[in-house]
């Protein structure tokens, strides 16, 4: 109870410093939030690109589909593999004849010229995984050709992976930076009150009694900083989406990152938690070495 009174008093008396502390947390939340959303969007796009990549294995004509079953089961049991699909020459034909131009070409053949094939999707398209699967496939009988886009695809995948690494590094930089900035701000507010802290010690207050209000204050500032940051982020993103729609006609409001329900509840809670954690660890970091006088 007493501790809450201390916090409240601190609030009242140093309105200016509270504003700065809350404001800084809000700014950090905006930066972290933009990063978070950008990261979601990038991952979303990347996975869409990756989803289009598949390894296609054309099988030798006349090779019994039955014998292939074993290979497929073996492949399905591998960790790296997301999905394996057998496509018979008949299925392939049905698929291709949908296009009229190809139909005429196909009709010029006596029989169905298309081979049986297997489509393989990987969980992660790293060069290592691709190599491994290709090597396994090469060791099997009855395979005519393996298609996976070759160097082109490998380059694309490399670039995607680089983008992922960069996003992670940027994320780490941002989180550390935020923590440092917030703890710096809190350090300064503590420094500005060093005289008061000294007086508290002089009249016999314990360290716990002195530090507790600062930590609670950090948490409260984090709470409000989180809410404010969320509101600003929400406004910016809404303006941005409207602008984008006007400019290019693309409607991202349906995109799952921005659906109202996600953005207005789960994301709100996340930003508030982020704010509170920032405030908490920020004040904890700063209190390590209180210097009074």
């Amino acid at each position: 109870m007493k501790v809450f009174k201390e916090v409240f008093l601190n609030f009242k008396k140093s309105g200016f410093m509270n504003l700065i502390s809350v404001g800084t947390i809000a700014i950090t939340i905006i930066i972290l939030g933009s990063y978070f959303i950008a990261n979601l969007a990038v991952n979303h796009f990347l996975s869409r690109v990756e989803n289009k990549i598949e390894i296609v294995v054309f099988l030798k004509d006349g090779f019994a589909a039955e014998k292939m079953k074993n290979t497929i089961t073996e492949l399905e049991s591998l960790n790296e593999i997301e999905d394996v699909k057998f496509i018979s020459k008949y299925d392939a034909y049905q698929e291709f004849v949908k296009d009229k131009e190809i139909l005429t070409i196909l009709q010029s053949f006596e029989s169905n010229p298309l081979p049986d094939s297997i489509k393989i999707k990987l969980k992660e398209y790293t060069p290592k995984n691709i190599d491994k699967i290709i090597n396994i496939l090469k060791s099997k009988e009855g395979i005519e050709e393996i298609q996976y886009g070759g160097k082109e695809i490998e380059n694309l995948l490399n670039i995607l992976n680089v983008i992922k690494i960069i996003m992670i590094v940027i994320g780490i930089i941002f989180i550390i930076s935020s923590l440092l900035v917030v703890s710096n701000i809190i350090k300064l507010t503590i420094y500005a009150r060093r005289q008061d802290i000294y007086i508290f010690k002089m009249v016999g207050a314990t360290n716990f009694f002195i530090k507790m209000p600062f930590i609670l204050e950090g948490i409260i500032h984090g709470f409000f900083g989180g809410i404010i940051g969320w509101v600003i982020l929400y406004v910016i993103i809404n303006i941005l989406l409207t602008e984008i729609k006007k400019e290019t006609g693309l409607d991202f409001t349906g995109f799952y990152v921005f659906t109202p329900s996600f953005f207005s509840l789960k994301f709100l809670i996340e930003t508030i938690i982020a704010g509170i954690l920032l405030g908490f660890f920020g004040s904890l970091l700063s209190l390590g070495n209180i210097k009074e006088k």
Partner: protein
Amino acid sequence: MIKFNHVFKIYEKNIKALEDINFSISKGEFVFLTGPSGAGKTTILNLLYREDIPDMGSVFVNNEDISHISDRKLPFYRRNIGFVFQDFKLLFDRTVFDNIALPLVITKTEKKFIKNKVEEYINKTGLCGKEKLTPWHLSGGEKQKVAIARAFITNPSLILADEPTGNLDDESSWEIIKMFEEVNKEGTTILFATHNKELLQKMNKRVIRLNKGKVISDESI
């Protein structure tokens, strides 16, 4: 109760604030500390409060060498001592009431008790009507009175007063002195640093005279 045993305090740049200080004060005594500016009065009080530790020698309070009090126990040691600081050391963003109540608040005393106690000392020191002001809005003497009330409020067994009447007119000074005498009669030990010669003469108590960090006389007048 208090014993200084060959105490030296030497600050940077070889400033000898205290040199071989020896004296004892028994429980319930009322002792004045006097001497010219820079003689070491505040330094002695600071050593007693463990705001500082001696460079040589030891300071005993209740037969305990206070240099060895751990950081964890220090706050509890200080709670038994009332200190009227020479520069007041008030919280400038709290009211007079809150400043005086501070030593009780940090020990989580009951609210009602605090209120009664604070009001008692506001009356005694003549601060009525100033309860809700912050020290920004007080005159020099009023600030001093707040500092005095804060030192008295916990009924400490030892009161250290550093020039507590320096900013007060004669009338207020005598009222404050009466407060000291009263608690002294009830058993509180008092160490009172002052420049005021009139006070020393009229009070007729034991006086420890310092000069340039040394005790030059220790007698009753």
